[in-house]
């Protein structure tokens, strides 16, 4: 159960987020099952507005990652507030396959590396990123390893058949 302080901050964050991006896309989540208090759903844009809004409330950018949903990508950002109340907000951005999302690195410098990692593994090109190059894979790599199409062989297909 959220504490009174968490409820206050939750209502505060919700109202300022809904001013920034629209109310329909914000949803409360069960912390005990998902580990997040609030989920924000966005379509293609708005991650910068959300990031700016959350930074004002004292959140820090914890993680950026992507999901390969075959027909589309989904960017997942988690923000955590350790200064005021312990609150985690998950921002989910649905992207078309070839879309170029905006980088949040000018708001949170930690995103410079986190977004480079997303580019490195998924091939998602962030706009206005200061240095979007390979970070973990070799500089001359021509593959994006975490795409679902990467590394599929006859052998792994057999494993999938047996296990799924």
């Amino acid at each position: 159960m959220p504490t009174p302080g968490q409820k206050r901050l939750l209502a505060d964050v919700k109202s300022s987020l809904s001013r920034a991006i629209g109310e329909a896309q914000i949803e409360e989540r069960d912390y005990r099952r998902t580990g997040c208090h609030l989920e924000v759903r966005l379509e293609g844009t708005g991650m910068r507005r959300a990031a700016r809004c959350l930074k004002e409330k004292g959140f820090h950018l914890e993680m950026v990652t992507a999901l390969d949903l075959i027909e589309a990508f989904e960017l997942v950002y988690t923000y955590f507030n350790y200064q005021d109340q312990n609150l985690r907000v998950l921002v989910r951005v649905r992207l078309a396959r070839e879309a170029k999302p905006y980088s949040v690195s000018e708001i949170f410098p930690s995103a410079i590396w986190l977004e480079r990692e997303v580019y490195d593994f998924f091939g998602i090109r962030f706009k206005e990123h200061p240095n979007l190059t390979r970070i973990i894979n070799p500089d001359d790599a021509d593959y994006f390893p975490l795409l679902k199409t990467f590394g599929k062989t006859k052998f792994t297909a057999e494993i999938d058949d047996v296990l799924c």
Partner: protein
Amino acid sequence: MLTIKTIDDSNIHQRVYQLNLGPQHPSTHGVMHFILTLDGEVVVACDPHIGYSHRGHEKMAENRTYEQYLPNPTRMDYLSGLIFNYGYCQAVEKLCGIEVPKRAEYIRVITSELNRIASHMIGIMDFVMGLGAITPFVYGWDDREQILDLLEMVCGSRLTYSYGRFGGVRNDITQEFYDGTRRFIDRMRKRLKDYHDLITGNIIFIKRSENVGVLSKETALEYGVTGPTLRGSGVPYDVRKNEPYSAYPEFEFEIPTREEGDCLARYLVRMAELEQSLNIIEQALDRLPPGPIRADVPRFITPPPGEVYFSFESARGAVGFYIVSDGSRIPYRIKVRSPSFSNVFVMSKICPGHFLADVIAIFGSIDVTVPEIDR
């Protein structure tokens, strides 16, 4: 009349140059590579390069079942592997809604705090060895050796543990382990005094670490720094207190912080944490409840579709396991938020303006594990 001739320096060009520190260098604690831009001996820019020990743990997760992935998290951070092992188990338990028996939670706390001490021992001693003090390093490894012997009794391995299971742990602790841990606590408390005498009061150590690599609260927030590095900057953020998990709410312990934010502060925070870990282990041993050590969980688990973010405190900071399940026996995606990844990036911000030798001190005081950065 005497005229003093000075050297005409208008023809001497001051040039900045680049120096590669690593990837093969003893004080980079693994295969870490820094490209330093230097002006004389002063660092102008520091550019950390990572990826030399990337093994694709996140891709591996997409090709094996939840049970088959159990040994992998340990290999990410090999120094506090047990904590990662439990963290993965707890994330999956949260996803499936599995309740863990109390005795198992206590055993997890005891062993992960032992592992934290072992990891901090390396962190501290590698740091001071980077500054030229070889003797404390040997003492520190002696203490770590005692812990590895204890953990070997219950886990069966010394470094790459795979002791946690979904719903509990693999096997119960023995009386030998119980007594040995008691003895270790007494021994370690005496040794901590020795370490303070040997290192903390040493004038060379203080000169090398005080006011070096000062990290402000604001920078730490912007760069996502966590763990002892953040607590050295005066922020009392520890996942064990902020988002209590496992049996941690049942124990009394403090979160040591320092306001200075320099290398010395980070060292002192780690030293204080050793004492707190010993207190936690002692309390857990005193109140170790009887009962089963593993919940009744099917041999092969199939989590319901959904996702979970589980955060826990490793020896280096807040780790996050983000698991997405599509309802099959293979995870759809496992993303690990590793603390060292964010902690090492902040070096590009705090190193400029320091001497080259201070880069080693800063890197040592942040205490990163390279395989955890690369995964």
